[in-house]
């Protein structure tokens, strides 16, 4: 137990240092992103028929929401705010707290991406084992080809394809949004149903896009394990097929757990293309819009969230690995 606690403490210290370094680097990069959002806004207002002077003044008002002072002063302010979990105010939605915007977007990202990832993981792993065992059969070939195809298809192509088929040719699902706005939000069947209906295509895209990677990785891992001596020994000892299958699956899935944990960390980055195509207002879309609007505070907040999530996911992956792989555990104890 003490070993685990010491290990966890080490991870946390390293994680905090990592977050500090990444936050500093991303702060510098973000503040140096070229482009003038105010000039773009001015142009937009002039195009809408506003006189140049009027547009200039309207834009000047927004300068109040821009970060002020030298880069160093801005950095100190930013880090001081971070200590109080204050990520500042958004420029693109003037007056709105960055934490509020991130929390709102996270709601629309976590569940669909989590469901999509777990679904693709479960299906990919199960079919991956089958594809490995039946690798000399037609079923094995079909599974492997399906994996390669879906793995090779970029997420945005898949999303556009599903969108074209299910929202335009066969309009079964809504093209964009999160829920039918005419329904009263709350724990009622029509609203929950609407949430599911609107989330179906983003989840399906995410699941299909991930499935190819999982099935191929699992198949390759199982094939490797099948060649190990302990499997041969188990077969020679006349063990039942079910027991051997358990041995295979347990050993083959180990490397995939690390990838899964990291995928769950990346979950906070959202799925930019999927969210953009389905106008699903998650963290990916928020990040994309914040870059377009040069909303420095929002960009910084989004990057920080992704960094923290990945660091935490890494720690969880490492701790989980210890729990599920006795070899790692015994190695630590020995040391």
């Amino acid at each position, binding site marked *: 137990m003490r070993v685990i606690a010491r290990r966890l403490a080490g991870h946390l210290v390293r994680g905090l240092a990592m977050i500090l370094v990444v936050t500093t680097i991303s702060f510098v990069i973000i503040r140096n992103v*070229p*482009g*003038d*959002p105010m*000039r*773009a*806004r001015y*142009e937009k207002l*002039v*195009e809408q*028929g506003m*006189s*140049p*002077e*009027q547009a*200039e*003044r*309207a834009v*000047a*008002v927004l300068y*109040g*929401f821009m970060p002020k002072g030298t880069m160093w002063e801005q950095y100190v302010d930013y880090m001081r705010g971070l200590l109080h979990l204050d990520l500042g105010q958004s420029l*693109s*939605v*003037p*007056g*709105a707290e960055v934490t509020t*915007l991130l929390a*709102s977007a996270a709601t*629309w990202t976590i569940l669909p991406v989590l469901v999509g990832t777990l679904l693709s993981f479960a299906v990919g792993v199960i079919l991956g084992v089958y594809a490995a065992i039946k690798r000399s059969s037609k079923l094995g070939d079909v599974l492997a080809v399906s994996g390669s195809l879906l793995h090779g298809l970029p997420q945005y192509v898949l999303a556009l394809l599903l*969108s074209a088929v299910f*929202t*335009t040719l066969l*309009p*079964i699902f*809504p*093209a*964009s*949004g*999160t*829920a*039918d*706005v*005419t*329904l009263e939000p709350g724990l009622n*069947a*029509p609203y*929950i*149903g*609407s949430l*599911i*209906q*609107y989330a*179906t295509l983003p989840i399906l895209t995410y699941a299909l896009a991930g499935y190819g990677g999982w099935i191929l990785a699992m198949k390759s891992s199982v094939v490797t394990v099948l060649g190990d001596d302990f499997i041969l020994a188990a077969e020679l000892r006349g063990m039942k097929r079910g027991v051997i299958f358990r041995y295979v699956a347990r050993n083959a899935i180990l490397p995939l757990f690390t990838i899964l944990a990291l995928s769950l960390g990346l979950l906070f980055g959202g799925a930019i293309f999927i969210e*953009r195509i389905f*106008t*699903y*207002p998650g963290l990916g*879309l928020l990040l994309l819009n914040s870059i*377009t609007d040069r909303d420095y505070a929002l960009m910084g907040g989004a990057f920080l969230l992704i960094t923290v999530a990945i660091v935490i996911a890494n720690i969880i992956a490492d701790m989980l690995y210890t729990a599920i792989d006795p070899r790692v555990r015994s190695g630590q104890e020995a040391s």
Partner: protein
Amino acid sequence: MKRLAAAAVSLCLAAATAACGGNADGSAGDVFTTIDALKPGIDANAPVNPYNPKGNAFRGFNAEWLGWTKNHLTDPNQFYPGVAQSWQIPSDQSSITLKLRPDGKWSDGEPITAEDVRFSIGLAYTQGGTAYALDPSAAGTASDIKIVDDWTIKITQAAKNPSSSFVRSVMETVIVPEHVWRGVLPADFWQKLKLAQSDAPGAEVARAGITSLADKVISFAPPRDVSAGPFVLKRVNPGEALLVKNENFHNAANVAADQVRILNYTGNEQVWNYLVSGRLDSAPFTAVPAGVMRRITETPGNTIVRGYSPVSMGLAFNQSKKPYDNVHVRRALAYLIDRAQVTKVASPEGGTASVTTSGLHQEAAKAWLGEGLAAQDPYRHDPARAESELRAAGMKKVDGRWTMPDGSPWKMTINVPASFSDWLAGAKAVTSQLNDAGIDAEVVTTADYPLYLEEMAAGKYDLGFWLVALGPAPYNIFQRLYGAQNGWQLFGGRLKHVAPGTEGNWMGGAEIIDVKGVGKVNPGELAVKLNSVPEAEQRRIVSILARTANQDLPVIQLWDYVNTQVVNTTRFTGFPGDDSDALRLTSGVWLQLGMIERKGRI
């Protein structure tokens, strides 16, 4: 396991209930579905605040102006009634007296009074604007706001520096309820304003005090929507906004829709999908490729409406760079570019090839110049003439390729933002034509629009695409050619010309131009005068500036935009027709004016 299965079945049932629930496609009831082109990217976290760039206040629906500007070719001061029922403007535009409706009410039942208008003007001062500039030397500012009675208010223009933009600026004031917004302005606001508008000691501090209120105004989040418009916001989620009819609206009986759904979108392709599936009752102008437009028009009920759009696309020169400082080179390029072909590629549905380069959209040019338009050089596609112009500029042709006068290679680069597909297609069509004519030309894309504008202002580009002819106000039109980007800067009513390559002067044109038949012209100075002179004088100035632009070619006008909109007549009828003066207004304005009718209703 059984519990899990039960949960899964429940969720499926819930989804099925929603799917079969009826109005997910917006077709049940008198629901009008549209998008708001002024505010792509609905944000459910934004307040119901018309001053906030992302605010969930939709113009014409739940955000109401005093009046709605008509799409007129030459006169920017024609309006449809909004909060103001009628108005009186003396011929010298020295004031505007607004008459409100005595029975006008907010959506919460409170009366709309002159006090609300005065308070809204107070808020507008914190944001700036032509009529509400705090700088006493600025042109076209309001000097006095006087409540005549509960429903009448008179706004007087400062006599010192009048502007023809004053009336429009006042009419485009958004009106908010004083009883909801009261706490946003301090009690001594009007005393401070009086001081700020003067030259008295403390005026500067008072101006800073009022300007500092801007953040507070933009960030203010009313607890609920109280609207003077035909609709009131009921709910907004990240995908769409739902507005319901404001029963207190003065013309509620003639508002055809009970509900309005404003759909969110983040890119044009989503608008195309909405249109192909027939979801939208109206969609404002969106650039659409020909193939997609064909599919859109195949959808039952979808109808195309076209009208004047005071915007043209120009290929702008940085005259600080060689050889574009030479007018013969600019003219040669104008003769070489086949604008009809470029338009066919870049904007087949939303544009028409410019007939010449005058700085004016061809429709406005006809109205402003009349027969004078015929006197302009049309710059028809003429390679032979282009060749003689290039030779006049000293350019040389070696092995079929044009070089600089000293024999060094001439490499032309046109910059466009990567995200604007029609601009990119247009630039590629231009370079293709120029390459065929022996000029090494290429297109370079910039990651996005903010970066494009920053680099352009810094003078990094030789040539770039630039929107011109932004009317209808003549000053706004010529300011695109002879404004800050070409060196003329207006500060506190005073004009100065800065050197090319400094302070945002990326066009780098000459301050004085010798115009054939006119003489020496300072186009920036003339453009500013357009703001304050009577109409007859405006016509004379517009004629001079059009000739200057035609001869000197700070830009080559490529195509004039056509306001191409899609309306669907399956559920509603009565939409404005081709060339209607209401086409540039939102469909919320059409609904509130009673233009749109529910189909089948007499």
